[in-house]
């Protein structure tokens, strides 16, 4: 168990180091910018002294290296600078925008699993049967529709043509919910506002489904091939010979073992799910960090872009770290390795 803790500790160290290096990458990429962000925020009448003052204020003076050190020093103290466009601290903006995105991503992950576990089993069952070709083409088709197109299709079908579900924002503005955790599904419950909870949940369905629909074919694919791998394993034959029902063999022996490679894939592809929130949140006017990123980019808001980009990277790193930890819990062989 000690080696396991040490392994996780080492991994945590790697996460920090990676995050630090990523912040350098982000910094350099944004400093090759051809246009001067100051030009957009100052009136034409600004004097050279004004420009110099603002430049210093925003930490945009000095060489890239100096700028980075200043930024890093502030960031380590919890100060990510102020947004040029919103004129508020980046950290404040992130604090309000992160919970909605996490809520959206978690709900869509649940939806994706609800779609892809039966889907993977179905495709496995169809292997070498008549329906295989159809299912196979359907899978490639589903892999070809990116999440933001699902978003648009869902809005047209379930929002406009058959107006069943809302597709603007997180909750109907007529509800007033105090912010406790920032997660609307939790805050409404804490305050006993059942109707608000239901409304917030309805608002989540379409954006989360759009993300889930583009994520699940990726999971289905790996789940099917892992199931095919386990089907050839001896323990599966042994279970069958012991007279266990097909269903029991599938659930207790095959799915359990197929879960490991699937989990790895979900970890690796989590960035894909997170990246999808950029356009999904824009399309559904959802006030999360994805939408914040798009706004920041449209306004050339450097401090904000930097902050949001790093949060995206951190999320991916944290998820990968958790998947590593979970993997070791699920697979005893990895604890000593």
């Amino acid at each position, binding site marked *: 168990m000690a080696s396991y803790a040490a392994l996780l500790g080492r991994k945590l160290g790697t996460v920090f180091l*990676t995050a630090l*290096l*990523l912040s350098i*990458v*982000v910094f350099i*990429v*944004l*400093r*090759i*910018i*051809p*246009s001067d962000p100051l030009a957009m925020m100052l009136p034409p009448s600004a004097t050279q002294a004004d420009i110099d003052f603002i430049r210093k204020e925003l930490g945009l003076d000095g060489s890239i290296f100096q700028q980075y050190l200043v930024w890093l020093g502030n960031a380590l103290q919890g100060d990510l600078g102020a947004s040029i466009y919103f004129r508020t601290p980046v950290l404040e903006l992130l604090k309000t925008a992160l919970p909605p995105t996490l809520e959206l991503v978690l709900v869509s992950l649940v939806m994706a699993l609800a779609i892809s576990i039966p889907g993977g089993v179905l495709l496995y069952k169809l*292997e*070498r049967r008549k329906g*295989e*070709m159809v299912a*196979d*083409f359907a899978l*490639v*088709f589903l*892999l*070809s*529709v*990116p999440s*933001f*197109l699902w978003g*648009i*299709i869902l809005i*047209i079908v379930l929002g*406009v*043509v058959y107006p069943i579900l809302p597709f603007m924002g997180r909750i109907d503005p007529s509800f007033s919910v105090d912010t406790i955790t920032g997660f609307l599904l939790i805050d409404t419950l804490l305050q006993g506002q059942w109707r608000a909870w239901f409304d917030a949940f309805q608002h989540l369905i379409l954006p989360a489904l759009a993300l889930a629909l583009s994520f699940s074919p990726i999971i289905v*694919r*790996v789940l*099917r*091939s*892992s199931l*095919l791998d386990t089907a050839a394993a001896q323990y599966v034959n042994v279970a069958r010979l012991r007279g266990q029902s097909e269903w029991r063999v599938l659930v207790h022996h095959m799915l359990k073992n197929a879960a490991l490679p699937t989990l790895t*894939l979900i970890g*690796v592809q989590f*960035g*894909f799910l*997170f*990246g*999808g929130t*950029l*356009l999904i949140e*824009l*399309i559904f006017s959802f006030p999360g960090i994805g939408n914040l*990123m*798009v706004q920041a*980019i*449209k306004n050339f808001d450097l401090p904000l*872009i930097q902050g*949001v*980009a790093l949060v*995206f*990277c951190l999320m*991916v*790193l944290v998820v*990968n770290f958790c998947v590593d930890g979970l993997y070791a819990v699920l697979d005893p062989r990895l604890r000593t390795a």
Partner: protein
Amino acid sequence: MSSISVNQQARPRGGMARIFSHPKVAVGGAMVLLFICVAVFAPWLAPNDPNAQDLLATLLPPAWAADGMAQYPLGTDSLGRCVLSRLIYGSRIALIVAVAAATGTMLLGTTLAILAGYLRGGFDRATSFIVVLWMAFPPVVFSMMLMVGLGTGVRNVILAVILVDWTRFYRVVRAEVIVARQREYVQAARLLGFSHLRVMLREVLPGVAPLIITLFSLQMGVAIIVEAILSFVGLSVPSNVVAWGVMLADGRDQIYQAGWNLLAPVCGIVFAVLAFNLLSDGLRVVLDPRLRKRGGE
């Protein structure tokens, strides 16, 4: 991946005939061909100038609807521009970005992968470490950030796709090169005194070529999606150039009055991406029988 029937029929036949007898290659290939033809012959196929505005006929429904006009088969957008013509012209940007970005991604990713996988050592560690860093970026976030750094425009969209996606080629090809360099034919070539460069180009590269072709087709689909995303956000083409993402962004404002304005570019993007994905998926099976049992990436 799938399709047992093909392997049962794997009698000695002409190479091309065998490849195209696979249903995914056949369907995907035909769709790719159609897509390329539409893009190349756009000026002859489009019924109208894609930028010509007919302000007396805005937001027309498709021609088969009650108040549609035969002149505009798929209707018009909010400025009275022909949706079908814009759909046809939009394929040009998609094709240009797909070809250029996939080529660049392939060259960069494969070169680094072969060098890293074959030479190993410090170079391998360094490039692999960069890949680990790159993997922490959600691709969309990274490409948008690059567009801020590089500035808008189609050329920079291509550059952004290359700089983000070369890791896909790198990871897959490098793993294959590491296996290939242990093979006898590579060892034999070294014993014969061939230079490292010659071994890499003449022995290792042909071995991983099927994989590269498969990834190339896949990457073309990815590039089309990325271009659509970036032009949707307004980071890609200038306003006088037609792109599917721009059509989506324009159509979003009139979603209640004219949903068909959105459906046309949605279908265009899905068609093109599906074409390359089918082709890639089929080629993977046909070109490398060993991959039949492997799923996923």
